[in-house]
């Protein structure tokens, strides 16, 4: 998904100072909210967030871990949903990637468009569409209705990773395999799967992160069940123990940063 290249040569020899300053400010803009969340997970104030915080304490981490059992069911549900949605997305996403990359056929563009649609259209449309379809067919909300929503927008992440890798794999490689006596299934096993392996892993981790974090579509497909993001959303308007939400947020950041970071590394080292 990301290929650093050496060919880009400087436009002028060195970056102008003004440009560097702008880049620094944009990076600051991107990261200061995370610092703020971290800071306020240690504040001594329970109901308001004045700056600077009047005092610092690590007690909210103890509270979040031991005194708030209501955190765990949503956390567990989110992990389960993300795992199943990722599994479905891995299969469907790579099937489409294989079909798209191996042949040119009528309707090929329509299919790539269809794959992008669930993330190109606002999430609320996916959400309310599924909800009204469930309503029309009398399907009750459950674990599976959440999974259907999540898998739909996760497919594209897997597809993008796999199709990019397949595009970089020369067609002559599969031809060479067939030429040397391997049938299609053997070519799949010995050549294609090893080549796309890391792309699948990366796509899967990104899909997991995307699903784990999703709130808009989930609002419409979840019924009474709370995923972790929905739990956080409900906490935003609660007056008491507000730093606990910050603690959970810090954990969510940590949990999603790790797979994303790994996914990035995986897609890079095979890029030379």
């Amino acid at each position, binding site marked *: 998904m990301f290929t650093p290249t050496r060919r880009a040569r400087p436009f002028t020899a060195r970056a102008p100072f003004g440009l560097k300053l702008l880049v620094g400010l944009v990076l600051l803009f991107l990261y200061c909210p995370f610092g703020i969340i971290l800071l306020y997970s240690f504040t001594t104030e329970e109901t308001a967030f004045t700056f600077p915080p009047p005092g610092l304490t690590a007690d909210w981490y103890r509270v979040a871990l031991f005194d708030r059992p209501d955190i765990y069911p949503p956390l567990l549900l989110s992990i389960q949903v993300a795992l199943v949605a990722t599994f479905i997305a891995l299969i469907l996403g790579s099937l489409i990637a294989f079909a798209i990359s191996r042949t040119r056929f009528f309707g090929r563009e329509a299919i790539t468009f269809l794959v992008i649609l669930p993330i190109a259209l606002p999430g609320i449309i996916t959400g309310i569409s599924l909800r009204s*379809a469930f309503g029309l067919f009398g399907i009750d909300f459950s674990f599976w209705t959440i999974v259907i929503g999540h898998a739909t927008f996760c497919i594209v992440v897997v597809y993008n990773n796999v199709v990019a890798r397949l595009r970089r794999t020369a067609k002559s490689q599969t031809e060479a395999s067939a030429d040397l006596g391997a049938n299609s299934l053997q070519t799949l096993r010995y050549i294609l799967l090893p080549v796309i392996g890391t792309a699948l892993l990366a796509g899967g981790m990104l899909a997991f*992160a995307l699903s784990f974090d999703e709130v808009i579509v989930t609002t419409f497909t979840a019924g009474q069940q709370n995923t972790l993001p929905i739990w956080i959303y409900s906490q935003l308007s609660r007056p008491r123990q507000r730093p606990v939400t910050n603690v959970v947020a810090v954990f969510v950041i940590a949990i999603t940063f790790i797979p994303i970071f790994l996914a990035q590394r995986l897609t890079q080292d095979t890029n030379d």
Partner: protein
Amino acid sequence: MSALSPSRQPRSITSRLSTFFHNNPTLTLLLLLAAPLLWLGVIYLGSLGALLLQSFYRLDDFTGIVVREFTLDTYRQLFTQSNLDIVARTVAMAAAVTVACALLAFPISFYMARYASPAGKVAFFIAVTLPLWSSYLVRVYAWKLILAKEGVVGWIFGALGLQGVLDAVLAVPTIGGPSLSVSMYGTFFAFVYVWLPYMIIPTYTALERVPGSMLEASADLGARPVETFRRVILPLAMPGVIAGSIFTFSLTLGDYIIPGVLGNSAFFIGQVVLIQQGTAGNIPLAAAFTVVPMVIMFVYLWIAGRMGAFEAL
């Protein structure tokens, strides 16, 4: 020459199956695409169709029950002045957010593509994508803390003795409010913040594809850097910017969380949809409302596709 005689193995089932697929490429393609098409084509598109269908039903005002017969009443209801204001407000916000994201994304993308070392590019890329994948809600919530009356921004203005400026900014009618976190400014900042990575990545990708030799050629032909920038770099970066704008525009059109958490009481499309389908129970009107961003996005995607934006995704 006996070593060269063909050594045909006994053919296994997988080998025969493989040959069958080899000789029937269309069937193979259909088999590959069957499951994904069932999912995206039937479940997903079917749901969009179901939604569209609902918008042609209407809610009986007295009984509160959806009447399942074709009518344009719901659309008549949609095109009232107050609803049109909501659509206009949402589209204006989406446009403003898109422009701001493009302006902020360009310098960093340009720096990444032109000046960063290969290792630097990787680091930058990770730095830009990490916030994108990490919790959306948490990031929105962080802005609530930053922009609150007693929050960081208020404190900075106070410390600099610029409280008067902040008050004046907040006093602007329709977009102002009691504090930054309860005004259109808050909505705008949070939108720009959460969607910015969506703009940086495709812009960077497009810029990265401009070979250095092309810039040298432009300079060699007598163009000063400013001219090279305007006549070579900018046009080549445009497909990337347009690809990014698909996301910033679309995501803003449908979002209901940010205006809810960080806005004054003026409604956006997403909020109305949520209220109509939820507490109001008026599914037809909610459906009709979602048709608006859907139509806008289809037109937008069509134009973007014609301008080559999909290659930059």
